[in-house]
């Protein structure tokens, strides 16, 4: 039994728990140690843990960064037709929500879906740019899985792998990634002609190393063709899954890369912004999750030459896996990332 006061604090699934200050600190230490164990990164220092403790043991409903330390928010999906036309949604974000940048996209946010409607999306981007002020990018998920059967032409590697057909699975992934690179470049061609400020590859690597390779190769091609077109490369997970296992970019094997190595390749490919991801463990507290997230991403900040926008959304960056992320958890994660990582944005 303890006489320590208990404070309401969120779990990774968004539910409230009531933990003592000591329990929260123990979770922070454990989260840091979990990152060390998995990714061989340095643990958080005592000062960093104490700073996180002050944030996560506070009973305040809301917290924020210090005045003057404000960062850029690169919110995706701001022009997806949620309550009005897509252009009106963009204007709403710009006018009412103070969005720093905007993103036009379709509801089915996948590259292979967009490839058949490039002209329509370019027309919409053209028109949207006339009616907005904030920088406007076009966003898709590479979503390589859609290139496999039954949705696409390539054999389904997720079905081949359990059958032990490793060579066939690798060949299918290699075929799909070539198609995806072409489609990504075609998308950039049409959006550049429309006047877009940037392209966003969202959730890159969701299908593992072939998808990450496709994004890197496409980014390099696009940045060489259009030096003034930005490319934002945001990841899907903290760790590049080795679905193929032997794919390399410029001599670096992609399977198994953690955020720092992912960033180095994104920079090499010419990306103008990078978004590392750390997945939330819904069975642990948000305090545990933020300590782990910061420990995993901290090495990025030492080598970053482009803006690093830590992903802090549903199920990533210590934000609970819940469709309407509670603001008390979001603001704590945001402040932690700004104070300790000195991220360029979220």
């Amino acid at each position, binding site marked *: 039994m303890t006489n320590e006061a208990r404070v309401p604090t969120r779990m990774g699934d968004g539910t409230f728990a009531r933990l003592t200050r000591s329990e929260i600190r123990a979770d922070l230490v454990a989260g840091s140690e979990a990152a060390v164990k998995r990714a061989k990164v340095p643990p958080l220092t005592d000062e960093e843990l104490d700073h996180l403790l002050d944030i996560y043991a506070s009973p305040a409903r809301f917290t924020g960064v210090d005045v003057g330390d*404000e960062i850029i928010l690169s919110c995706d999906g701001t022009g997806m037709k949620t309550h009005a036309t897509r252009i009106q949604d963009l204007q709403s974000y710009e*006018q009412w929500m*103070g969005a*720093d940048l905007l993103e036009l996209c379709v509801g089915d946010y996948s590259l292979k879906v967009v490839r058949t409607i490039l002209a329509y999306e370019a027309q919409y981007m053209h028109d949207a740019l006339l009616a907005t*002020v*904030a920088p406007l990018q076009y966003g898709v998920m590479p979503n390589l899985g859609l290139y496999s059967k039954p949705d696409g032409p390539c054999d389904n590697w997720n079905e081949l792998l359990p059958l032990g057909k490793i060579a066939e699975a690798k060949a299918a992934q290699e075929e799909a990634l070539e198609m995806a690179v072409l489609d990504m470049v075609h998308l950039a061609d049409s959006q550049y002609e429309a*006047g877009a*400020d940037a392209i966003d590859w969202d959730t890159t690597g969701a299908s593992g190393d072939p998808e990450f390779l496709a994004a890197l190769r496409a980014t390099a091609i696009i940045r060489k063709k259009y030096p003034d077109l930005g490319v934002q490369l945001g990841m899907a997970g903290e760790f590049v899954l080795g679905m193929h296992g032997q794919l390399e970019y410029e001599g670096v094997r992609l399977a198994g890369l953690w955020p720092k190595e992912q960033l180095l390749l994104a920079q090499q490919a010419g990306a*103008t912004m990078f978004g590392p991801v750390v997945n939330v463990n819904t069975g642990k507290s948000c305090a545990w999750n933020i300590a782990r997230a910061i420990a995993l991403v901290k090495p990025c900040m030492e080598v970053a030459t482009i803006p690093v926008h830590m992903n802090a959304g549903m199920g990533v960056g210590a934000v609970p896996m819940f469709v309407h992320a509670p603001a008390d958890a979001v603001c704590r994660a945001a402040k932690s990332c700004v104070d300790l990582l000195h991220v360029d*944005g979220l």
Partner: protein
Amino acid sequence: MGGMRAAGDLVARMQMTRGMRLREAKDYVAGKLGVTPFDLSDPVVMTDVRNEHGFGRIHSYAISQPWQANQIEAKFNIARVLDVPINCVEKFKERTTPGGAR
């Protein structure tokens, strides 16, 4: 940074298209506008700065000012003052030049 309420859109543009880190982007924009990086997040300061340069503003029926530059017009001014190429501005110029539209 509050987007168009302050200078968030301007700093974001330097990150997105120029790949500038946050500090560099803030210093660049502040330098071009003659303010401090601290001012960039302050809507009280930046509203006047945006009005002065025609960078577009948050609208309200109570304070509508239709003579001010907005939307694509504002981006022309942003490109000029920040000395940064803005793709849609360049395309607008091409398309409104005789023989430029395809």
